[in-house]
């Protein structure tokens, strides 16, 4: 059965850690009849909230994974996608924010807009996600929803509009006044499940009239029809809802809803607001990359009859094997149907298709555009796109950045080595920028990723989810080497120590190549090097690139041209030419003025303007180049380019510089030449290491 898109919502719940996100999610599941009893976060029953499936998240109170759950509210279907509150975790954040069409921004009525609210709000802004605000915890001492409203306006720049007023605050909190319907709403029954609507209490009438007028003034900006109706005093709730929906979808207005999830108040009205004001999937433009046309952006159609396109946004290990959460963006994915993985080019058959609740599932036959579902037994990576064979679209770029930092990892106990391997296999599948290998020289397990925090999260998850205690080596930046000059080589490899000899001579040149990491050109004429040995030469050169002799890192940006050489009828072999190529390479490399390259990161720091000076200084001290700074009233964003090697521990430094009010994101930008002084240190370190190895 195809889903009526207008009755579907894909939402995320974004919040500061202590604003009650998990309790709210739990209540939503309860009122939508998805669970039959409620737990509290870190509750006495030890069960914890249903959505927070990861142990680590329970403990830290943060959400890194993005499990999805499907609920029904009246005639509407709502998919709730658990969003990460962690801004540094780029791939994870990007994926979950792509999957949702709208969001509930949860705020604590006491704490109001806090630093993490600012960061989650920024994420929503960045991905242009329309949102509604829920001011929670009205039962707490010090609750002040009006203050939170002004903070939303002043600190976050939202056109925040109260759609409700509280009836009593703190321990006197009883319910809310619905300004759209002009009614007082109470939540009766032991779990607030019975809604009682009454006339507005006389003592709140004047305040409610005033707030309603303000709301109408704000909302009528989005509808001429409503403006006219208000002037004539004949506005209806439908007109108000329609106008507010328009404003919210355009991100020009943020409706505010009130309540206390813990005391079971206001959650049902919040669900009404989700369906009223947040977009359905057809109202959001989704872009895919056309792999046949250099990743040109293509707008997808939400038509269920179109060819299917779906994104695998999350993988989970379940008791029945790998579970792949998907969002369908176009067409319909049907059980038994064949699809193509746009990245790996592997075909797959849709076996079991399920709709997920946090810890239970429902078998379904099909999932169409806008829907969120999960597949069983599919071999894939997180971020892969499934399409109808013949289509060549991907939801995200298929180019994956090379890791820029690595760490040696040791299992603290021998017996946990297996679990460590299992965890690493899982993580590399989930995240293509996280890699692992065993170093052939040191025999150490090395993990690689896109930044310090990126690796930290996985080390932490290993401890929590797989119970593997690990120790780590010092983080190591992935330096590279390259050359400045074109130099020539003429090298003969010759060995005659009994038995079959070895002979190979290669002549040619190496030169800098900004186009490709490595290029091999064969210009040997007249069979001076027999054709069958040319691949061996290529192989020999490539083998040399693995470890340079300046600082001991891989060599990149090299073009090798082979022009001449010589062979021996008996003594020449693949092995001899490989050795000759390596000898030739090092002969030329030493003269080619090699230099060191380091990864440079694109750094973006965001925070209140009063800290720009400290941020500028912190970037300057790290050999960074400030590219721009943008100030908009109270907030500033500073963009810079900074060498990765200088960025270890930056999160701690920034936190202390800015009292925790600023945060940063960092991604790989390019490789750049290491300044002379730093290069000398790296060269000295390498020489030192070589000497130590030799003396062993």
């Amino acid at each position, binding site marked *: 059965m195809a889903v009526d898109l207008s009755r579907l919502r894909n939402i995320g719940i974004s919040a500061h850690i202590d604003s009650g996100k998990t309790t709210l999610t739990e209540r939503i599941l309860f009122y939508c009849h998805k669970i039959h009893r409620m737990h509290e976060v870190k509750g006495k029953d030890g069960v914890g909230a249903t959505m927070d499936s990861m142990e680590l998240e329970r403990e830290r109170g943060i959400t890194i994974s993005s499990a999805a759950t499907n609920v029904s509210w009246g005639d509407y279907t709502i998919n709730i996608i658990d969003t990460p509150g962690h801004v540094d975790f780029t791939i994870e954040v990007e994926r979950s924010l792509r999957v949702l069409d709208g969001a509930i921004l949860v705020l604590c009525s006491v704490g109001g807009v806090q630093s993490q609210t600012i960061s989650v709000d920024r994420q929503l802004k960045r991905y242009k996600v329309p949102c509604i605000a829920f001011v929670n915890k009205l039962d707490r001492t010090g609750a002040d929803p009006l203050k939170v409203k002004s903070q939303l306006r002043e600190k976050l720049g939202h056109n925040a509009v109260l759609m409700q007023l509280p009836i009593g605050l703190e321990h006197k909190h009883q319910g809310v006044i619905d300004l759209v319907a002009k009614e007082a709403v109470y939540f009766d029954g032991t779990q607030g499940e019975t809604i009682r609507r009454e006339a507005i209490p006389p003592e709140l009438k004047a305040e409610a009239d005033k707030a309603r007028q303000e709301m109408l003034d704000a909302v009528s900006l989005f509808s001429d029809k409503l403006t006219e109706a208000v002037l004539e005093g004949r506005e209806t709730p439908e007109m108000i809802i329609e106008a507010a929906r328009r404003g919210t979808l355009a991100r020009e207005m943020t409706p505010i809803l009130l309540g206390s999830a813990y005391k079971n108040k206001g959650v049902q009205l919040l669900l009404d607001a989700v369906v009223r004001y947040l977009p359905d999937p057809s109202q959001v433009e989704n872009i895919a990359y056309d792999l046949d046309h250099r990743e040109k952006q293509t707008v997808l159609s939400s038509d269920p009859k179109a060819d299917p396109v779906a994104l695998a946004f999350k993988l989970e290990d379940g008791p029945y094997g790998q579970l792949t959460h998907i969002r369908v963006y176009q067409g319909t994915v049907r059980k038994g149907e064949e699809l193509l993985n746009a990245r790996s080019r592997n075909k797959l058959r849709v076996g079991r298709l399920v709709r997920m609740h946090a810890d239970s599932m429902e078998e379904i036959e099909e999932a169409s555009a806008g829907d969120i579902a999960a597949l069983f037994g599919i071999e894939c990576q997180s971020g892969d796109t499934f399409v109808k064979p013949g289509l060549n679209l991907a939801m995200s770029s298929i180019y994956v950045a090379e890791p820029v930092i690595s760490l040696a990892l040791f299992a603290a106990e021998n017996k946990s080595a297996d679990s460590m391997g299992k965890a690493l296999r899982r993580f590399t599948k989930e995240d293509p920028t996280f890699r692992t290998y065993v170093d052939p020289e040191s025999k150490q397990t090395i993990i690689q990723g896109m930044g310090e925090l990126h690796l930290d999260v996985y080390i932490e998850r290993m401890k929590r989810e797989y119970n593997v205690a690990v120790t780590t080596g010092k983080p190591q930046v992935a330096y590279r080497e390259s050359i400045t000059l074109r130099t020539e080589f003429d090298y003969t490899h010759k060995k005659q120590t009994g038995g079959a000899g070895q002979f190979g001579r290669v002549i040619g040149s190496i030169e800098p190549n900004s186009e490709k990491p490595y290029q091999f050109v064969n210009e040997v004429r007249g069979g001076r090097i027999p054709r069958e040995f040319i691949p061996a030469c290529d192989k020999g050169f490539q083998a040399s690139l693995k470890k340079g002799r300046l600082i001991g890192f891989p060599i990149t940006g090299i073009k090798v041209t082979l022009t001449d050489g010589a062979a021996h009828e008996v003594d020449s072999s693949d092995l001899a030419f490989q050795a000759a190529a390596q000898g030739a390479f090092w002969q030329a490399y030493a003269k080619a003025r090699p230099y060191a390259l380091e990864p440079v990161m694109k750094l973006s720091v965001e925070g209140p*303007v009063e800290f720009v000076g400290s941020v500028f200084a912190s970037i300057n001290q790290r050999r960074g180049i400030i590219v721009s700074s943008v*100030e908009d009233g109270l907030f*500033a964003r500073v963009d810079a380019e900074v060498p990765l090697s200088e960025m270890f521990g930056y999160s701690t430094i920034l936190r202390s510089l800015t009292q925790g009010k600023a945060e940063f994101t960092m991604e790989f930008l390019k490789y750049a030449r290491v300044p002379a002084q730093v290069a000398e240190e790296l060269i000295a370190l390498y020489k030192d290491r070589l000497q130590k190895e030799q003396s062993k």
Partner: protein
Amino acid sequence: MVIEDLVKRSPLRILENSIHGGLGKGNIGVLASRKGVGKTACLVHIATDKLFQDKPVIHVSYSSRVDHIIRWYEDIYRELARRMDLEPDAEIHDELVRKRVIMNFNQEGTRTEQVLRSLEAMVQHGRFAAETIIVDGFSFPQSSPDDLRRFKEFAGRMQLELWFSASLKGPEPLFDEQGIPVELRSCLDHIDVLITLRHWNDRVQLRLIKDHGYTSPSELRLSLDPTTLLIAEP
């Protein structure tokens, strides 16, 4: 051609000669015209000329997004390099980028004091040794003469020169009999060099209205290249 020649042969030397060797530290220069005549291009040209001379520049923008400004710089760099047969060199380009920083403010939400605080932080904490600051998109009608006075004080204290653009919006006549833009008369005292850009014989002509204390309008031997909007000899 090498960079030194490019600098030496730049039409901006004519501008410098016309204003007693340049704007000078502690001073404020203003390029004024109606919208869309070419002020931003002129400012970016002036900035790029400084960058070629190894002098760092802070580009303050009140209106454009950072990526738009960067595009301006890229276009003008490419045009200058093409015109002067400068060898395309990634290192020269990267070196120029390193000496330039863009600061973007929202004039409605940011007071001049805050802008100056951030500029000072950039120079001192960011150790960005700028000599020239470009201020584009500053709305003179939205500001008070006091704002310009603060900029002038800042220029003096920090030993910097500041080049502004002024977008003239009012009804005709835009200029008084001396050629002074009517909108700028109230803050003329704080302006050291004032140049207007006006259409003349199918070209945009640069006219020097005020030169370090002297208000005696004269045509500069400079106009804007109609295709690239770069400052050029007629």
